């Protein structure tokens, strides 16, 4: 377990911000944290980053109790990093900023430089290395702040509204970076966000903070999967009693139980006469919801699993199905992402 929160309570200015009876957050996963304004999302992130102390309650980090004393907190802080909603860069060049965390850890100068450049490359900002940090735009500042956090290779990355006040181009870049570091380095990520936002699609699990209480639910299109047959080229995974899909064996983790995320934008409607053009799985389900969302058509299918897909208005107009109809969809291989779940949760 990454975090265990037991009876955690925070009171600010005489107002109880939240009270969490018992809650666990698993490692290696991406969590989104939603909630209305003022619900305490940033305060909770600060507590998880060991930058703020709870008023009452107990916290465990990697099963060890967190003693709220400065000497203990410094060691914990060096495993976790938080990126602010509107990050500030220190006076100096971009690379000086990225090296900062490494300097605090007494990493030798040559290694510092190497890792700082790598981190800047990860966020696509290496050409700004010698630029004065205060000359960057808002989106660039966020990317450098992310690089500054990534350079220290944290076990946990906490992001407060990572794509807020950022143009759509930078939003996509930031989300891709978060997905990549989770995939490659198994970095646990918790980020606060708004409902129905773009980054919600990134999360494996959703945390919701409202009226001082924290709850968790599986993110859209993320399923507990069980490997039922490992073939040489393709393997079969059960997502529910009724739904079995096949995925390339190279993408399947070693453990038989894992999480599986299906990218809703890559799911497509199957051709009426059958679809054998792409490798993937064919799933049939009943349409339970159709709505317009940001210029696209969002469709919810009950197919033994709840499957969300996003269609362009043209494709939807062409097929023009209604709520209650049964439609077949193709889940192509490139839409499937297997995520080790560090646990033993079986499909329902």
């Amino acid at each position: 377990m990454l975090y265990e929160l037991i009876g955690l309570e925070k009171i600010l200015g005489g107002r109880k911000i939240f009270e969490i009876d018992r809650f666990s957050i698993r490692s290696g996963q991406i969590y989104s944290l939603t909630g209305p304004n003022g619900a305490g999302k940033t305060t909770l992130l600060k507590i998880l980053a060991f930058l703020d102390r709870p008023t009452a309650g107990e916290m465990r980090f990697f099963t060890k109790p967190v003693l709220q004393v400065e000497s203990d907190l410094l060691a914990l802080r060096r495993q976790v990093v938080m990126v602010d909603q509107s990050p500030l860069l220190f006076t100096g060049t971009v690379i000086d900023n990225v090296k900062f965390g490494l300097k605090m850890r007494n990493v030798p100068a040559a290694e510092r430089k190497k890792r700082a450049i790598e981190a800047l490359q990860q966020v696509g900002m290496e050409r700004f290395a010698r630029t004065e940090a205060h000359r960057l735009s808002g989106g660039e500042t966020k990317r450098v702040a992310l690089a500054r956090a990534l350079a220290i290779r944290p076990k946990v990355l906490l992001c407060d509204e990572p794509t807020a006040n950022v143009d759509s181009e930078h939003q996509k870049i930031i989300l891709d970076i978060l997905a990549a570091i989770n995939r490659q380095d198994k970095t646990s990520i918790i980020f606060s966000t708004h409902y129905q936002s773009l980054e919600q699609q990134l999360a494996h699990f959703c945390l919701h903070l409202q009226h001082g209480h924290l709850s968790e639910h599986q993110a859209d299109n993320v399923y507990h999967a069980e490997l039922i047959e490992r073939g040489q080229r393709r393997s079969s995974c059960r997502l529910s009693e009724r739904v079995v899909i096949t995925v390339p064996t190279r993408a399947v983790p070693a453990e038989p139980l894992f999480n599986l995320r299906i990218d809703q934008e890559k799911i497509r409607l199957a051709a009426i006469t059958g679809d054998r053009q792409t490798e993937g799985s064919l799933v049939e389900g009943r349409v339970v919801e159709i709505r317009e969302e940001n210029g696209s058509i969002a469709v919810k299918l009950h197919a033994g699993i709840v499957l969300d897909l996003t269609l362009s208005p043209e494709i939807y107009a062409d097929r023009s199905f209604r709520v209650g109809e049964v439609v077949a969809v193709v889940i192509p291989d490139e839409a499937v992402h297997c995520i080790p779940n560090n646990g033993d949760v079986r499909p329902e």
Partner: protein
Amino acid sequence: MELLRDSLLSAVVLLMQLDPELLFIIWVSLKVSTLSTLIAATVGIPAGLLLAQAVFPGKRFILTCLNTLLALPTVVIGLVVYAFISRRGTFGSLGLLYTQEAIIIGQVILIVPLVTSLTIAAVSKLDERYRLSAMTLGADRYQTALVIFKEARFGIVAAVVAAFGRVIAEVGIGMMLGGNAKGFTRTMTTAMALEYDKGEYVLAVALGIVLMTIAFGVNMLFHFFQGRTRTDAL
């Protein structure tokens, strides 16, 4: 008016001749003021950084005391220090009375509250996110304080410059603790007071010109750093 014009002309001649007595007085003034400012900065800046960041019971009381000390008259400081370093005082055996060291002690007491208060003001104005960013990136308390010092440096330098301006123009402590001994503890301000008493305006006016030039330079520096701080905040 004629008196002022004649004195002014004579003073300019005195300055251009690089009169040794005049130069020594300027040297003593600059030396004691610089040393007292450096000592006060060494004490006041860390104290300001600590007080601005730390949360502890009685902090408000300490800040109120600091603000009160800003209004402390120099003659009061002179009297208190005199009581300690005069022959009958606790530190009388050290023979500090009427020395440059005595002036420095008095001036340090005068400006430590000023440096501390202005450092607190500079640090308090700084965005909280600098501290949080440093901490989340793994900085310990000392490293975080260094980051804050670096980011608030213009405001802190302005505090030091203001403190120097305060002591270079100070007369009460120089007179009471330095004794205005010629060629030893005579500073620009004490010399001006003496020359005025004697009715010798030429040297007083010459010193006045130098003092005003230094004060002008110090204030230019102060406004330069204030300007930089404001630009940074934008």
